[in-house]
């Protein structure tokens, strides 16, 4: 057998194997999308943006059956949704972290928008550090590929040539590029959603907008902008902690806050009920206050 034939057969086999764990997700008006079996209890992982309604959800199984599904919960900030179906004997695929994955490796994107499994091929374009989505979701590591996101591929897996799944692909997290939400990011989200049905998010109760810092402070703090408070909700954690209109927040727990997204991203669920250290500029002076973070409802 030629090496080319070997590669071709291996890719087709990977598609076939992983395909047994792919379902069609019927959760929006336009084209159906793709979900991946997470465990043998009928838990399915997909992209949040392809499940536009919370009820009347259906799953198309590899054997052609269509069965009802319920929404366990979703995290729009990372574009992850978790569904549950009563179907048994679903094939659980090999989910894996990104260890060993390198720029240039061949990868497949798979989908089941209709009855059959479809596949596209690409290479890993970029692997980089932790990042935050525009909606403030924390993603363990940046994973960009040049796979073609065929219609209905969102929620489908990024698959290595050995059939291992590195995460699920989203065509909307970043416009114009195919990024993958890694397995290591999905796992704790699934655990939390299965336990609580939602993700906890921290809450301060402020409205803000970025402002340019005075030159001296800019140099001292090493950042150009901070967040000017334009609203402080009554009885909010921010008010109780002594934040005032006109304060300029510049850091949260030691991490610089330059734009609203950075404040949102910093208010993770694990901070709820705990003290957060807020560095701010008030009357030209740098202050630090502790605020007990609330929970966003």
């Amino acid at each position, binding site marked *: 057998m030629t090496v080319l034939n070997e590669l071709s057969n291996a890719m*087709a086999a990977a598609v076939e194997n992983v395909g047994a764990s792919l379902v069609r997700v019927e959760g929006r008006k336009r084209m159906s999308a793709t979900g991946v079996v997470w465990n043998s209890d009928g838990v399915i992982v997909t992209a949040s943006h392809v499940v536009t309604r919370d009820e009347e959800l259906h799953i198309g199984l590899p054997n052609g059956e269509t069965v009802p599904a319920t929404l366990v919960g979703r995290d729009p900030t990372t574009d992850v949704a978790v569904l549950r179906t009563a179907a048994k004997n679903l094939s659980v695929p090999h989910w894996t972290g990104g260890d060993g994955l390198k720029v240039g490796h061949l990868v497949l994107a798979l989908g089941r928008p209709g009855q059959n*499994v479809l596949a596209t*091929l690409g290479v890993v374009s970029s692997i980089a550090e932790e990042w935050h989505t525009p909606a403030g979701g924390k993603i363990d590591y940046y994973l960009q590929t040049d796979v073609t996101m065929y219609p209905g591929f969102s929620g489908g897996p990024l698959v290595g040539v050995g059939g291992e799944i590195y995460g699920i692909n989203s065509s909307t997290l970043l416009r114009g590029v195919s990024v993958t939400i890694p397995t290591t990011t999905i796992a704790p989200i699934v655990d939390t959603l299965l336990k609580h049905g939602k993700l906890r998010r921290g809450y301060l109760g402020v409205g803000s907008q970025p402002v340019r810092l005075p030159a001296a402070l800019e140099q001292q703090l090493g950042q150009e902008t901070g967040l000017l408070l334009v609203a402080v909700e009554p009885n909010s954690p921010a008010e109780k902690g002594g934040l005032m209109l006109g304060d300029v927040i510049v850091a949260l727990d030691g991490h610089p806050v330059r734009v609203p997204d950075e404040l949102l991203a910093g208010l993770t669920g694990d901070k709820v009920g705990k003290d957060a250290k807020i560095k701010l500029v008030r009357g030209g002076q740098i202050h630090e206050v502790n605020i007990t973070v609330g929970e966003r409802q």
Partner: protein
Amino acid sequence: MGIAAAEFEAVGEIEIGGSDRLRQLNDDISDAIDRAYHALVQITNGERSIGAGTIWHSEGLILTNAHVIHDETPSITLNDGRKFPAQVLYYNAELDLAALSIEASGLPTIEPGDSKHLKPGQWVMALGHPWGVRNAVSGGIVIGMGAEMPDIPFSSREWVVVSLHMRPGHSGGPLIDTAGRLIGINTMISGPDVGVAIPVHVVKKFLKDSMA
């Protein structure tokens, strides 16, 4: 992902180290292309390139898409440079297939492959003349096959949908498998990196029905 405009001439032996298997992979790819590309022809109207064609029979039967020769007076340029005027033998706009004949014999043909058992993920290559660039090759994989492919026009018909760069000028050229066998006729694009081909078993039926 694509192998754009591969040249068919060798460029000499260059030792750059690396993996023997990867080099073997490259050799396998060019071997498959070598087996197929003699059957690739260029279709012109006057001096203007209007598409590609695939030699089906050594006695001068050439396949292309109906849309390539629509209202044109086609000539065929073989890969050895010879040029022939062509007669339109069979034409089916609905299937988008046409068969041409030229006054030639002993032409190099291509071995038909199996388009009924293609698998998503398997390696394929499209040969043609994208934007008039002669004898270019694109590589990729099968996305899916059959009718009812999402987002494909005329979705009630059978297609092979492939993940590779297909462009105007690929139309009528061969889509080949890893052994250089003909599995489809390149027909249209559905997005920048999605090509659509007519499977060779549909082509066979077209010829059989036309000759009956």
